[in-house]
C-alpha cells in the first residue's frame, strides 16, 4: 500500500534527479565557451585565400607560399615528371592509392599542402627515393604527385581547393 511517506520520498527522489540533471546541463553549458574559445578565432578563419602568380615559376621549378600559416607547394612539373606520376598510378607501394589525374587540375601544375601528414614538418623538395619530397623529421618519402610511398606518414599531401583565375594566376583556398 502506498503511504503518505512513500509519496513524499518519491517526489523527493524526482526532485533530486531533476536538480542534478539541470545542474549537469548548466555546468556543461558553462564549460562550453571555455572549451570553444580555444578553437580558431574569426580572424584566423577569415584568412581564407591567397592569389599566386604562376608566371615566375619556370618548368621544373617549385615555389612555396604561406597560406593560413602553413606552406603550400606549387610545382611546375616537367613532361617526364607528369609521365612518371601517371605511370605510378597503379604502383603497389602506394600507401594511400590515388591517381595523379585526381590530384591536379592541369597536369603541369601540382598544387598541394606542404605539411607532412605524419607530424607536420615541411618536406624537402626534390629529395627522397621517389623524386618528389622527403620529410627530414621522420623519413616520409613522397613521389612527384605528392603521394606517400614510404615512411610513417599515413596519407598523401592533401590537395586544397584552388581555381585558375587565368593562365598565370591561381586562387588558393
Amino acid at each position, binding site marked *: 500500500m502506498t503511504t503518505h511517506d512513500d509519496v513524499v520520498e518519491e517526489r523527493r527522489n524526482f526532485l533530486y534527479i531533476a536538480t542534478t540533471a539541470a545542474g549537469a546541463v548548466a555546468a556543461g553549458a558553462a564549460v562550453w565557451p571555455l572549451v570553444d574559445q580555444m578553437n580558431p578565432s574569426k580572424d584566423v578563419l577569415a584568412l581564407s585565400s591567397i592569389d599566386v602568380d604562376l608566371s615566375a615559376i619556370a618548368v621544373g621549378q617549385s615555389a612555396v607560399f604561406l597560406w593560413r600559416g602553413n606552406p603550400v607547394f606549387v610545382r611546375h612539373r616537367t613532361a617526364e615528371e607528369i609521365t612518371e606520376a601517371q605511370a605510378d598510378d597503379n604502383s603497389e607501394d602506394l600507401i594511400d592509392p590515388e591517381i595523379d589525374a585526381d590530384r591536379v587540375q592541369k597536369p603541369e601544375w601540382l598544387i598541394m599542402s606542404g605539411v607532412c601528414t*605524419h607530424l607536420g*614538418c615541411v618536406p624537402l623538395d626534390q629529395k627522397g627515393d621517389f623524386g618528389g619530397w622527403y620529410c627530414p623529421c621522420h623519413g616520409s618519402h613522397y613521389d612527384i604527385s605528392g603521394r606517400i610511398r614510404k615512411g*610513417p606518414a599515413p596519407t598523401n599531401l592533401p590537395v586544397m581547393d584552388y581555381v585558375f583565375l587565368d593562365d598565370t594566376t591561381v586562387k588558393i583556398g
Partner: protein
Amino acid sequence: MASEKKFEPTNPTLKWVEDRLPIMGLIYSSLGAGYSAPRNLNYWWNFGVLAGFMMMVQIITGIVLAMHYVPNIELAFDSVQHIRRDVNYGWLIQAIHANGASMFFIVVYVHILRGFYFGSYKSPREILWFLGIIIYLIMMATGFMGYVLPWGQMSFWGAKVITSLFSAFDFIPFIGGGIVEWLRGGFSVGQPTLNRFYSLHYLLPFVLVGVVILHVWALHIPGSTNPLGIDAKGPYDKIPFHPYYTAKDAFGLGVFIIFFAGFVFYMPDFLGHPDNYIKANPLVTPEHIVPEWYYLPFYAILRVIPDKLMGVVAMFSSILILFAMPWLDGARIRSMQFRPLSKFFFWIFVVNGLFLGFLGQKPTTDIMMGVEALLLAQLSTAYYFGYFIVIMPLVSRMETTKPVPTSIAAAVLDANKKG
C-alpha cells in the same frame, strides 16, 4: 606512525597561533623533528628534496622572467635576447631557468629510478607512486610549453610536431577532426598557440605544487621506504628527520648546486640546441629536428613504429605503463638488494633507457655497428616494454631471493660490527 612527537611551543605567541592554526605543527611533523624516518636512508633518498628545491627555483625564476618576456610571435624571440643582454642579471636568471628545467628532470629521473630499485611503488605506497607519475606528466607538459616560448626554430617545430601527434586520434568521431586546430587555435602553430602555451606554462607549475603536496602527504602515511625495503618496526629503527636528514639533504643540496652552477656559469647553452637561436620560420623545418634531451627516449619510441597511430600509442604507453608497476612486480621483497636477478635486469633497463635517448637524437637512417639506427631503436624499445610486461612479472615471482635482515637496527648494527 610517521610522526611520534608533537609540536608544543613554549613561546606564548607561537602557542596562541598554533592553537588557532596548527601550521607550525604541520611543518614540524612533515619535515622537522616530529617526522621520524628510517635510520638507514642513503644519498639516493636526497633526490626528492632536490626535486622540491628545483620546483621552487623554476617557479621563482619563472615569475621573474615573466616580468620581461613578451608572448607575441613578433617579439618573443627578441624579448628573450633582451633578457639575456639588457635586463639586470637577466643572463643569470634566464640561464638558471633554462638549465633548471634540465636539472629538475635529472633529479626526477634519479628519484624515479630510486623508486624502481628499492621497490618504492609497492604496497602500501601505490597512490604515492601514482601521484609521482602525475607529477612527471605535468612536468613534461610544462617543460614542453616552456621550450616553445623563446620562439626559435626548435620551439616552433617542436610545437608543431607535438600538437600534430594528436592528429593520430582524428579517427575518433566528433572530437577527432578538429583536435589539432583546437590545440593550436589556428591552422598552424602561431600567435594563439604561443599565447595559450604561455598562460598554461604559468599555470601548470602551481598545479604541480598542489600534486606535490598530495605526494608528500601520501608519503607521510606509511613514511619513507629505505634501502633494505623492510618496514621500520620500532623507535630503534628510526631517527628524527631534523636534524639528521635535514643535514644530510643540505649536504647533498650543496653538491648538487655545484653541479647546477657548472652548467649555469660555464656552459649555459650546452643542453640547448643551436637551431633555437634562429627565429621561428613556418616555411623551413630544421634539417635535423630533436626534442630536449629529457624527452629523447620517448621520441625514439615514437619513431620506431612506422605507423603513425601506433607510434603515438606506444609513446604514451611507455609512460602510462608505470601505473601498472605495483601489480606487474609480484615480489614480496621491496629492495633489489635482495633480488639479484631483478637487479641485473634493472641495470640493463637503465643502460637501455640511456641508449634509447642516444638513439632519439640520431637520424633513424644512421648506420651504427653495421645496422640501421632504426633497427637498434626497435630492439631497444622491445626491451623497454619487455622489461615491464615479461621480465618484471616473471622474475619477481620466480626469483630466489637473498635472506632479508630481521630489522633495520639489526642490519645497521651488524654492518657496523663488520665495518
